[in-house]
Structures are given as C-alpha cells and as structure tokens.
C-alpha cells in the first residue's frame, strides 16, 4: 500500500511534468541523483548527495516516531514541530549557558534537556486531553504557534539574541556538539572534497536508536501493550484495567521527548545555534507524512524518512540540472500523503469505485488515525 502510494504520486508527478512541458525522466533522474548520488550527469559528487540526504532524514526519523507512537494510542500528534522547537530552544539555552563544560557532561545535558522540553510541550496537550478532554489536534496545533513565536521572541530582541540586528543565538559550546562522522577538516580531502562538507553526524545513530526504542517500547513492554489497547478501544482497555488517562499523558510525554530530542540533535549536530531558519522549519509536519507512509512501524518510518530526505536533497539538484522547480518535490510529497489518505491504491486493487467504503480500511497494524473521528474526543471517564 505505501509503495503503491509512492508510485501513484510519482506517476501523477510525471504527468504534471509532461503537461507543463518538462521531461519527467530528466526530473526524476535529477531527483535520484540529488537524493541517492546515482545516475548523476552534471558532476555532482555522489557521496555529498548521500551525506545531504542523511542530514535531512535524521530529524524525520525521530519526529516520525513522535507522531507514530500517539497514533498507536489513537492520538493525532500534530505538534511534533512545536515539540522539536522546544527541544532546540532548550538545547541552545543549555549549550550556551554552560558552554564551557566538557562534552561528557554537557552533551547528555543538552540532549536530555531537549527531551525534557519536548516532553513538557507535548505533555500540556496530553494533560488537557486526559483531564478536560481538549482535543489534542487543536491543542498541539496551537502549541506549534506558541513555540514558533517563542523562538522568534527569544532570538529577535529576546534573551538568546546574539546582538542587535541579528536573528540568531550565540553558538553552543564545543562540548555540546555532536561529532560529525567524518572529521570536520577543510584540508583533509575525502571522496574528492574537503571532509568538512560531509555534514553527516552521530545524531543519525541517535535517531536509529530512537526508532529501535520506539519498537521495543511498543511491542516488548507492558506499557506498549497498554498504548495499543487504548488505541484499539478505550472502553475495552478500561475494562481490562488500563488507566486511559495515565496512558494518554505518558504517551504524549514520551512522544514529546522524541520530538524534543530531534530538535536538540539538530542543534547539536548540524546548526550549533538557533537561527531564523527555524521559523520556517517543517520537519515536524513532514513527520506526519513519514509516520503515515511508514505505517507507524519503526522500519517503515526509517524507510519513509529516507524517501523524504532524498526528495528534500534531490529537489535542488532537479531544479538546477533539469530546470524543473523544486516545488515539484512539495507536490510529490502532498500527492503521497493524499493517496494514502484517500486510499486510492487499495481501491484500484479491489476494482472498486473510489470512495465506496464509508470508512477507509486502514492496514490492521495502523490503528485509528481514526483517533480523529473516534469517541476519543470525549474526556475518558476513569473507572474508579
């Protein structure tokens, strides 16, 4: 199903290309070159393209997990972006304030600080959901705005601002930075380029560990079982003695910690300071597509992140090599999401007219995205 959605999107994208007078083969070979470093025709460095793709996909894995986990509990976490920003703010604040501490102390501090801030941010939505029944879709969207404007305030005129007229923070201390996988050395030549251009950093390992932790939590712990039980049916879970409120709050806290970790890793691994580019960051929104495309499974999320990272990295190459606006990438991403949501491919396979089924049959391992439409909106009355 997800592979079919991707193929569907690329097929429609090819038609759009052809109709607008561009050559779809050129477009897609540019995308493949930019994303995976293969079939490059214009002298792109393949290793550099792979490196860029990995840099882009790293935060998508962790935020993808942060969307997928609440999905399993029937919660729709639209707030991964806000939680990511909270994590990057905490990482920056700690990394600047305690910039002189050595790495073994400071690095865990900034990463845990980011996780705590993300957990706090998502926890607000979790507590509101569990206590007064405020819908998590609404609260997490609103918290995204709060986080975005908070970042703006902090680095423009606020306490983290580098200086008048700037829109960025001080850089975090050396000890707060994640190492790059290749040495950050301008004079060392690797793969024909200065080693420092390869920005792949050890945050990739953290992201993969996060995906593994997500799978372990969900399938190998009793709490994971409770999450899935609540996602399948709150009533049945309650009947079985699961505290729905506790599960909702804890799930959101953990999801927020994942997102916050993504933000902290992005600061510690790539950017080293909080800048105006975080105003227009969309990682936490792309994560929703990643979680859906990955069917909410750890392996699926990693693969979907790879696809989206490659699209991000490939768009610029497609634009310069094939002369096709990199906006096509956004169209492709939207088409992928759209075809998953509309379940076109399943309908085609069954030979049914579109939209005949009133409720889309989500794959069995993906529980209620339906959290949106289910009775989950009502505050869960706790059995006492």
């Amino acid at each position, binding site marked *: 199903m997800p592979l079919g959605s991707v193929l569907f999107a690329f097929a429609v994208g090819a038609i759009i290309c052809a109709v607008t007078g561009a050559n779809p083969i050129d477009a897609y070979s540019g995308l493949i070159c930019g994303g995976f470093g*293969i079939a490059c025709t214009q002298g792109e*460095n393949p290793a550099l393209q792979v490196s860029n793709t990995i840099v882009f996909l790293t935060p998508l894995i962790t935020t993808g997990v942060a969307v997928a986990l609440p999905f399993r509990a029937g919660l729709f976490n639209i707030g991964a972006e806000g939680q990511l920003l909270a994590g990057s703010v905490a990482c920056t604040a700690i990394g600047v304030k305690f910039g002189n501490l050595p790495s073994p102390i400071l690095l865990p501090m900034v990463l845990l600080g980011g996780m705590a801030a993300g957990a706090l941010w998502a926890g607000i939505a979790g507590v509101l959901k569990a206590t007064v029944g405020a819908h998590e879709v609404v609260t997490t969207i609103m918290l995204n705005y709060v986080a975005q404007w908070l970042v703006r305030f902090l680095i423009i005129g606020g306490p983290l601002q580098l200086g008048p007229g700037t829109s960025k923070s001080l850089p975090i201390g050396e000890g707060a930075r994640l190492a790059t996988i290749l040495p950050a050395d301008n004079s060392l030549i690797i793969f*024909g380029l200065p080693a420092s251009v390869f920005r792949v950093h050890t945050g990739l390992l953290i992201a993969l560990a996060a995906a593994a932790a997500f799978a372990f939590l969900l399938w190998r712990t009793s709490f994971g079982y409770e999450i899935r039980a609540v996602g399948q049916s709150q009533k049945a879970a309650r009947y079985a003695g699961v505290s729905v409120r506790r599960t909702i709050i804890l799930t959101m806290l953990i999801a927020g910690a994942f997102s916050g970790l993504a933000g902290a890793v992005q600061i510690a691994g790539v950017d080293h300071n909080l800048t105006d580019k975080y105003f227009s960051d969309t990682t936490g929104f792309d994560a929703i597509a990643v979680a859906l495309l990955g069917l909410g499974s750890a392996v699926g999320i990693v693969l979907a992140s790879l696809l989206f990272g490659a699209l991000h990295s490939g768009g610029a190459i497609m634009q310069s090599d094939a002369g096709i606006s990199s906006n096509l990438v956004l169209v492709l991403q939207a088409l992928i999401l759209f075809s998953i949501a509309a379940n076109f491919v399943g309908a085609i396979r069954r030979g049914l007219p579109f939209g005949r089924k009133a409720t889309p049959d989500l794959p069995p391992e993906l529980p209620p995205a339906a959290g949106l439409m289910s009775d989950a909106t009502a505050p869960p009355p706790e059995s006492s």
Partner: protein
Amino acid sequence: MGHKRLRFLGVVAAAMVFALACGGTTGGGTPTKTYKIGLVTDVGGLNDKSFNHLADVGLEKAKTDFKIQGDVKESKSGDEYVPNLTDFATKGYDLVIGVGFLMQEAVGTVSGQFPNVHFAIIDGAGTDAKGNDLKHSNVVSLFFKEQDAGAMVGVIAGWMEKNGKAKKNKHVIGAVGGVSIPPVNHYIAGYKWAAKMEDSSIDVKVGYSNNFTDPAKCKGVAQSQINAGADILFQVAGGCGLGVLQAAGQASVYSIGVDADQKDADPSVIASALKKVDVATYTAIKNIVNNQFTSGALTFSIANEGAGYAVDNLDLPAELKAELDKIQGQIKAGTLIPPADIP
C-alpha cells in the same frame, strides 16, 4: 508486505554503497572560457519583488552581455543554504552568489571549504557563527551606500514641505526604522540630512519598530508620527514597513518605500529609495569575466549607479525634478557627501 519492504531496503542499501564507493571518481571541473555563475536565493524566492528578484535580473543581464552559464537555486528553507552553495562549489562554478545577510554564516562556512571558488554575498559578509567576518580571500561583500538613496528621497520630502506640496504642510516628516542597525541608519541619515538641506525649518521624526516582519508594529510607530503632524513617512523596515505605507494611505498622507520600487505596495507611495542589487550582481559577474575579482567589500552608490531612487504614484513638479537632478549630479561628482550617521 514484509518481503517487499526488505527488497526496497536492499535496493536502497545497494544504492548507497554504490554511491559511496564511486564517490572519489568525480571532483571539481575545470573552468573553461564559458564562466559558470551560480546564484542561490534566500527563502524569499525569486518572486520576492526585492533582493532575490533583482539579483536574478542582474544575472540575466550578464547572460546577454557575457559568455556565461548562469544557474539559480531557490532555497525553500534555511537548511538548504549550505547544500545549495556547496553544490555549485563542487561543480567548479567560477562565482557563487548568495543573496542577503541571512546567508552570511553559510557563505562563511562554504567559502572556507572551497578556497578556489569565488563567492559574492549581497549586503553581508562570510561570517562565523558569532557573526564575525572571516575575511576569506575568495569572498567579496556587495554593500550599498544607503545614505545616497536616502538623500534623494530626502530631497523629495524636504522640497515638498518647503513648497507646500505635501498634505498638511506643518514642516514635519517621519522615518520608521526596523532596528537601529547601520544599514537602516544610513538610509535615515541621508534622508534627514537632505530634507534639512531643502527645508531648514523641517522637523524629522525618527522612530524604530524593533521589528522587520510585523506590519502592525510599524503601523503603530507611523501613526504616532502622523499624529505629531508628519505627512511624509519613509519606511526603512522591510516587511514590517509595509505597515508604514498602509498607515500613510489610511491617513491620506504620503509615504516613501525602500530597497526596491514599492510603487504597487500602496497608493500613498510617492517614491522609493533603491538599492540596485541588479547592478551589484552584474558588476560582481563582470569582475569575474574580466579577471578582476577582488576580495573584501565593493560598495555601490550613486556614483557607480548602484543606489538611487524611483518616482512612484505622484507626478513631480518640474522644479523638483530639476532639483533632484542637480543634487544627484553633485553626489555623483563627490561635491555633496551624504552622511552615514544620523545628523
């Protein structure tokens, strides 16, 4: 489903191994007679009606005049600055141009990695994370004498007040800056200086919104200046300044745009102070083609037609036009020098 996923994973893994294995085989190309110029926009994109658009205009003009290959990469988000600059650099481009101060750090990083590639940056320098100029020998900063452009619109404002052509004629005008930083204050310095030169009894109100993006903030500052009698307002606050133009329109007074020609932003705009980013971009390319690249800073002013003004939604009286030509000629000749600091 499981085996499909595995197969996909296998293909991807094979692709990445292949890519890494082949990494060493390609490298920077050698420049030929056709110079390769790469332009990287900031997140504003090519249709921003301002810096990015003008930089592209300069590139297109250079394409018709010189034997160059010019390519543009639009940055969709801030995290694309480094990859976009790096891609041009790895492909052996002769000049990579970054548009705008948002790219300072990215240009600083990439120019350090590719000392054999030339870089130009509009309105900024190649800096480290703390904003210090790294002074790389392969980077040229394209700066502007904003005070020249400010002086020309200051002449318009001062002359109109003196000759009773403004709306209230209380000899009060205003300027709304974004933040009190050098480029903003250069504009205001030229404006105030020239207005006083034209009309010695003029009162120039100067205010700051402490913001470059939120029109509401600038609108507030503009309204307080209008309440104090100002009837010509000069905005020097980017997107925030659109609020100045709107406030002037609503109060039926005049306004003056900044950076690019803002004629269409509001009917109240009678003139715009211009930074000619197209001229700067064209000049940077010309220097590469003529093998005259110099690092450091190039400054664009009225003297080299890199700064100026546009007349917008008002027919200027012939006398004022003559005055503008006279002052422009004197600034160009160096007999009149607008100050960089607010007098």
